[in-house]
């Protein structure tokens, strides 16, 4: 009798913690997807400024980055999700949950440069886009340097 009770308790605990892991799994997957999709679009813009420049493609790519930057991805940083696996193990550092001011600063810089990129892309000026791409990449790095764990 006692054994069955203990077994049930154990099962519920394991299932419970597994559920918590599953909750984080989705959040981590969504944000990893967001960053990955932005990486593709950064590379698209890069290919355009280094090779043949296609105004429409750069506009599409810049709009993607602006949209994702402004999508409120902060919501996906659920407390406790610095451990867990989405598409791969998360590389979010614990500091991202504690250093609110630091995160705010780099996030705002990223949004600012992403909005600027969308504006510049609309003009079709390849040289200006190249310049802005450097700045935008710098804001990606700004967050990575402080809040993304090295492998």
């Amino acid at each position, binding site marked *: 009798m006692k054994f069955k009770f203990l077994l049930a308790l154990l099962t519920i605990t394991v299932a419970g913690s597994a559920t918590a892991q599953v909750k984080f799994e989705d959040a981590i997957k969504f944000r990893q997807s967001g960053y990955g999709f932005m990486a593709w679009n950064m590379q698209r813009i890069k290919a355009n400024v280094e090779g*043949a420049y296609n105004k429409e*493609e750069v506009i599409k790519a810049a709009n993607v980055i602006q949209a994702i930057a402004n999508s409120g991805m902060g919501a996906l940083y659920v407390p406790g999700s610095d451990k867990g696996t989405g598409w791969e193990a998360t590389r979010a550092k614990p500091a991202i949950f504690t250093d609110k001011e630091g995160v705010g600063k780099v996030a705002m810089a990223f949004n600012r440069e992403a909005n600027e990129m969308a504006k510049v892309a609309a003009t079709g000026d390849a040289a200006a886009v190249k*310049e802005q791409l450097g700045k935008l*990449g*710098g804001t*990606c*790095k700004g967050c990575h340097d402080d809040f993304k764990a090295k492998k």
Partner: protein
Amino acid sequence: MNSQRIRLWDLPTRLFHWLLVLCVATALVSGQIGGKLIELHGKIGLVIVGLLTFRLVWGFIGSTYSRFAQFFPTMAKIRAYRKGEWRGVGHNPMGALSVFGLIFLITVQVLSGLFANDDISFVGPLYGLIGKSLSDRLTGIHELFSNAVIALVVLHVGAIVFYVRVRKQNLVRPMLTGWKDDESGESAKGGSLIALVFALMVAGATLYGASGIWLPELPPAAVETPRW
């Protein structure tokens, strides 16, 4: 008073040294800043590949004191040096350790850098040979070892300053002019033009390989954007 002087460091070695100083300094700064400078960082890395390859070959066929066999620091030599009993010309055993240490560290840096990525839009020239996961790990090594390079460079410069100020041995002048004053050893021999051309050719071939120019072209980014 015997005011003899000898030829110590040959021109290729000296050129290599100072070009490496320039390249490593630029690479360290551009790597830290990133952003627009990351492309430069990659190009400098390739130059360093060429420089290091040259030095490695020259270490076998260059002139006397540039050859690794001449200054390789054995335990016996290090012990003798610690006791103040080392009598040699060229790199003393401690200097020799720093030479091999720096060459090793910078080699790890360039090799890992060739496959690295910045998670945004920059990849090393040989990234196409491996997958993202392995590249991420090599990038981690690349970023970690950059600290070791900085530390060893600081130590190296510090040691030179120590020798100049405290031991009163000007080590910089011979690396600039090639002459060592107040030295009664043998002038450097060897390191002929043929050896130089050969070393340069090997460096050039390695540079070509590292540049990834020979990798099959990736399909170009679509110029015609699909409707969907």
